[in-house]
Structures are given as C-alpha cells and as structure tokens.
C-alpha cells in the first residue's frame, strides 16, 4: 500500500505541486537527516524518499557517498568536490561544514531509496543501476515498484534487467503460477545469485510443475555459470601470468641474456614502484585534481629512466668486475639488494606507500555469471605484452640487440669485432633494470609499495625465467602464462596455499622432463 502512495506522490510531483509546500516538507525531512542516532537518520532518509521530491535523489546519493554535510548553522549541504550546494535551492554556497556520519545500514537504505527514485530517471543507466540498488536490499514493495517502472520502460536492456529482477522477486510469491512464470523467465540467466534463489525455492517448493521447470532452469543456469567460471579462471590465470611475466621480463634480460644472477632484480621493481609513488605525489602537489590520474602515464618513462640509471651505475660500479663469475655476481647483487632496500627505508620510511589507481583503472566490466573483468588487470595484460613485444623486437632486429647478445656470449671476441663491450654491458643492464622499473609501475597498481616489494617477486621471477628456458623470451612468456593459468585452475580446488605448493611441485617435475626449461636451446651451441 505504501508503494501505491509513493506512486501517487510521484504522480503528484509530475503534476507540479505547489512549490512552496514541497519546499517546506523537503527542508524538514532534510534537517532530520542530521539526527543523533543512526536509527533516526534511517527514518529520516526513508521519510525523505517518501516525499517523492525529485531533489531527494541527489541528497540520498550524497548521503550514501558520505558527501552530505552539515554546516555550522545547521544547514544541510551537498559536497560537490570542494564546493557546497544547497540542495533546496540548488545554489552554490560557501560554508564551514562537516560530513554527516553514515554507517553501512544507513548507506544501503539511502542507496535503495535513491534507487527507487531513480527508477524514473531520464537516464537509462541510472535506471538500470536503480534496479540493481533495489535488488540489493529489496523492500516489501519492491515488486510493485519495479512493475510500475517496467510499464513505462522503453530501453531494452533496462527492461530485461527489470524483468529478471521481477522474476526473482516473484520466486517468493505465494501464487504458483507466478512462481512458474518466474522460473521460466530466469532460465536464461547466468547470475549465480539467481541460481541460489532457485535452489532456495526448490528446498520448499511443493508444486510439481514448478519444481520440474525450476530444475530444468537450474541446470541451464548451472551450465552457464560453470562455463563462465571456466572463463573467469582462464582470465585470472592470464592475469596472474601477466603479472609474473612483467616481474620476469627484466630478469630475462639481465639474467636470460647477460647471465647475471641478479638478486637485486626485485629491488629494481621496487624502485620503479617508488618512482611511481613519487610521480604521483608530484602530480598531486602541482596539478589540478582532474589531471592527477595522468601520473601513471608519466610514471612509465620516469621509472624506466630512474631504474635504468641505477642499473647502469651498478653495472659500471660492481657487476662489470665480475663477468664470468656468475656466483660471485649473485653474492654482490644480494648485497646490493640489501643496500637498496635500506636506502628506500631511509628515504621513504618502512611503511607502505599509497599509490592510487587512476579512475580509468578502477572497477571493471561486470560480465555474466558474476564474472568481472577488472580494468586494471586487462590493462596490465596488454601492457605486459607490449613491453615484451618491444623488447623482443629490440633484441631481434636492432644492432644494439645483436651487440648485446654477442657481448654476453663472448666478451673478448666481441671486443675484437669492434663492439664497445663496456658500453653495451652498461646499456644492457640498464635496459633490464629499466624494464624491471616499468614492471614496478604496473605492480604498484595491484600490490603494495613497500621496501619489501621486490622480495615478493624475486623467487617467482627466477622460477618463470628458468621454467621457460633461460635466454628465450618466448619461453618466458609461455612459462609465465602457464604457471599463472595452472595456478588459477588449481586454486579453487586446492586453496591458495596448496595450489602454490602444487605449482612448485609441477615445476620440479617438469624440469625433470626438460632439464633446460620449456623452450630450451638444443644442440652443440648450448655447450660451447
């Protein structure tokens, strides 16, 4: 019945009720939002929504987002990112204001209420979101509301969402016919929440025809959900693989090409991540807020340059004296890694640094089956392929690439051919380090930025390069992706811990079969 009133009120609104009266009621309901207890705030939010005032939607949104403020004089204002708007007049005002505190319950009530109001919004996306909001906390009148909205709906995708929503609400209807309809409607869904609703229904359903259809629908939903689960696993595997790959590419140069067992590789990644942080802070300090997100783009060359320079310094200062003594290099680079960690601790402190995802890397596409394709992971997959492709091209086709390989295979002979070995060594190590730095930029987007960052990746990186076959970029790629996918397919069954153990056992056994990695070079050339 309340819903019916609500619809009436909405209709009244559409008929343009006298403005002054509406203002009064609105202001009163608004003021009540600044109550002491959450219970009172919730009541106030519901009352505000019940007014059917078009202005209520943005107030409730602001409330849910924590942007609803109360000024020193008690006026309720909406924070619009720096400036305040008076929700009653819509005017911009200047004031000292404090946010109205919200808790999760109030937040979801406000969001659902805003959703109900937005059901009739002119914006189709907003209507669709509204359906979702209502479904997240369906009140008793939800079905009536959605039905009313459906009658007016013109957009097909919103319509579909509403029909699904209605159907799932109808599942609990006392009328078997409605339930039957609902169950039929939902057969095409691939939403796991629908699946569990039908499962719940089946536990209590007594009507045999409904049961039958429900079971069939369940099977078809189950199939699609499983399929999407498989796709999701695959994507997650690729994504994990791309992270492993990114962490390992730089090592594929310093270790794979140069043969330097570079224990400081992880620290190069870390330096890249810290450079990202520094660039972000610089952007935050110097640029207007809407440009800050570009920091990530600027961080890529910055991180490359910083880590490449550090790498070149290390090569000239330490590593070059150790060519042909790989194990000593390991020892020295281990020392370097300790020093670099401590340097960063001294400069930035031991705690995690906050690196924010730019807006365009936050969130994801909600696909069917409860599977979300997150932007940051998709971007990282493409980014890592681009880096790998670039590196492969450089190695294969540039004369620098040729010199790099010649120098590392036979340094004295390369010199006798006129190749400046010192410079090439420094540049190669710089390149590998620089790529590690770029990886740091990407990894800062999904993990933490702390002095220990590098340690988290070093074991995995070596594992990937060796598993793929030292010296083979292609092997590094396939190795990383294989390990990522294997891991992600094991994890649902074995759990994260056992999954990881199994992957390691897999590597150990695999190497028995191919003692020089996945893409091992064969023939005499390997021995010499």
């Amino acid at each position, binding site marked *: 019945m309340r819903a019916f009133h609500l619809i009436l009120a909405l209709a009244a609104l559409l008929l343009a009720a006298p403005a002054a009266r509406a203002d009064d009621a609105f202001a009163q309901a608004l003021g009540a939002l600044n109550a002491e207890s959450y219970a009172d705030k919730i009541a106030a939010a519901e009352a505000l929504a019940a007014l059917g005032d078009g202005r209520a939607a943005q107030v409730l949104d602001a409330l849910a987002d924590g942007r609803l403020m109360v000024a020193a004089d008690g006026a309720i204002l909406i924070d619009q990112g720096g400036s305040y708007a008076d929700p009653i007049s819509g005017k911009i005002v200047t004031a000292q204001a404090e946010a109205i505190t919200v808790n999760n319950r109030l937040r979801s009530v406000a969001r659902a209420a805003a959703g109900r109001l937005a059901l009739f919004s002119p914006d189709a996306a907003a209507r669709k979101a509204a359906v979702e909001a209502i479904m997240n906390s369906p009140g008793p009148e939800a079905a009536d509301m959605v039905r009313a909205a459906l009658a007016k709906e013109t957009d097909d995708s919103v319509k579909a969402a509403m029909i699904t929503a209605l159907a799932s609400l109808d599942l609990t209807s006392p009328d078997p016919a409605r339930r039957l309809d609902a169950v039929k409607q939902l057969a095409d869904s691939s939403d796991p929440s629908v699946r569990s609703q039908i499962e719940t229904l089946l536990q209590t359903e007594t009507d045999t025809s409904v049961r039958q259809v429900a079971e069939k629908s369940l099977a078809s939903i189950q199939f699609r959900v499983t399929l999407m689960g498989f796709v999701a696993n695959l994507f997650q595997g690729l994504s994990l693989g791309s992270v492993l790959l990114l962490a390992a590419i730089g090592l594929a140069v310093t270790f794979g090409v140069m043969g330097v067992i570079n224990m400081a590789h992880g620290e190069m990644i870390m330096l890249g991540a810290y450079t990202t942080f520094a660039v972000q802070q610089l952007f935050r300090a110097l640029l207007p807020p809407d440009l800050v997100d570009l920091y990530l783009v600027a961080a890529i060359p910055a991180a490359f340059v910083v880590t490449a320079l550090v790498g070149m310094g290390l090569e000239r200062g330490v590593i070059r004296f150790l060519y042909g003594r790989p194990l000593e290099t390991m020892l020295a680079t281990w020392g370097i890694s300790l020093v670099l960690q401590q340097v960063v601790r001294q400069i930035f402190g031991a705690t995690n640094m906050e690196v924010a995802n730019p807006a365009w890397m936050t969130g994801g596409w909600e696909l069917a089956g409860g599977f979300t394709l997150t932007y940051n992971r998709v971007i990282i997959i493409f980014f890592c392929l681009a880096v790998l492709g670039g590196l492969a091209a450089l190695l294969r086709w540039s*004369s620098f690439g040729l010199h790099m*390989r010649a120098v590392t295979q036979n340094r004295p*002979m390369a010199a*006798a*051919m*006129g190749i400046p070995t010192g410079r090439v060594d420094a540049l190669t190590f710089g390149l590998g380090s620089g790529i590690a730095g770029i990886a740091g930029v990407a990894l800062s987007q999904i993990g933490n930025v702390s002095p220990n960052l590098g340690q988290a990746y070093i074991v995995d990186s070596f594992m990937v390069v060796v598993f793929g076959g030292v010296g083979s970029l292609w092997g590094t790629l396939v190795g990383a992706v294989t390990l990522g996918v294997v891991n992600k397919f094991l994890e649902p069954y074995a759990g994260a811990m056992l999954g990881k153990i199994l992957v390691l056992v897999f590597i150990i056994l695999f190497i028995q079969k191919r003692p020089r990695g996945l893409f091992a070079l064969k023939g*005499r*050339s390997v021995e010499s």
Partner: protein
Amino acid sequence: MLMVENIDLYYGASHALRGVSLQAAKGRVTCVLGRNGVGKTSLMRAIMGQQAVRSGVVQWEGADITTLPAYERARAGIGFVPQGREIFARLTVRENLETGFAPLKRAERTIPAEIYELFPVLADMHSRRGGDLSGGQQQQLAIARALVTRPRLLILDEPTEGIQPSIIKDIGRVIRLLAENKIKAFGEMAIVLVEQYFDFAKELADDYAVMDRGEVILAGATAQMVEADVRKHLTV
C-alpha cells in the same frame, strides 16, 4: 704498418713474451712460426689488445695503440681470426657475420659477396646457429667474420686448423690476393699469419718470424730464409 717493439707479456708470474718485436707491412704476408706454447697466440692477443702487455709498444699506422682497448683497435682497422674460432655460439651464421659491422660506417654495412664465393657453405647455413656448425665450418665462419670488418691489418691465428684440404688451398689463394690488394671489396692490407704447417706458410709468406720460448729467434724476408735453421726451431 704494424710495429711491435720489445713487448713483455705476463700471465700472472709466468713470462710469456720476452722483448718481442715484430713488423708487418701492408701488401705483405708476415708469417709467425713456432712450436706449441712458444707464445704465438700470446703475441697475437697482445696486438689485438686482448691481453695487456707489461712493457713495450704496439704501433699501428703510426699511432701508438699499446693501451687502446680491443674494440678501438678493431675500429682502427684490425681484424682478428683467433685460435679456437671463438664463434658466437648462439648467434646465427648471419648474425655472426653482422657483428663485423660494428666498426663500419652505416653505408658500408654489407657482407661482401666474395665471402660467400670463398666459403659457399656459409650461405647454405645462414640461419643455423654458429655453435651448431662443424669445427671446420666454424673456422671458415671465423675468417669470414673478420673479413666483414674490411680490415687493413688481418691477424690470422692458425686459420687452417680443421679445414678440409680444398678450402685450405682456397684460403691460401685468397690470402695472397688480399695481400696483393686484388679483391675488389677489400683495400690494401697487412696480414699476420700464425701457422704450424710449414709448407703452407713458406708458400704464402713474404716475411717470417720464428718464435721460441717467448722470444723471436729468427726473422726476415722469406726469400732469405734458411729452411733448415727454421725447421730446427720447429722440432722438439
């Protein structure tokens, strides 16, 4: 003109070259002879800059190159065929040859067709890895690779080792032609050749030097060489 004057070279405490001097003029083949372990390779490495000398001077085209790093010497026109081939094992044959572009100007970066005429097998095996080649094929590749740099001084340390007789004959002919500046792709050249095979050396050499125990014992023009004296130093 290459002038090595009075160089001393040590491996740690062992004295491998003792006051060695050697000259090699353009247009001539200078042959270094000597038994195993007398220091021939050490001398070549000293000229190339792969091994530092303790004292003495190495001069090339009038400039003192004693302390120049090896790659600068390569850029100054010295080409090197080392003993033991020293092929870049995991580069393809083509890439091995292309490492010879390093000292060249961009416009000159081509592989002279004459190289493939001399060593046809290299053309067949262009994309095979250098390390996969047979010993003799690698030796051919090593010579070819040095020629790609268009050297003005060519150092050959036992270049015929492991090569089949027919190609040895060809190599001999080519060395002659190179010294006489008769191959179009290459300019005037001084050639230093280390060789164990006496007949081959005698046939090719304009000048010769015989080493024993880190010293040059005999040297001069081949025309004036007393074969018996030389042979005496080549037997145990």
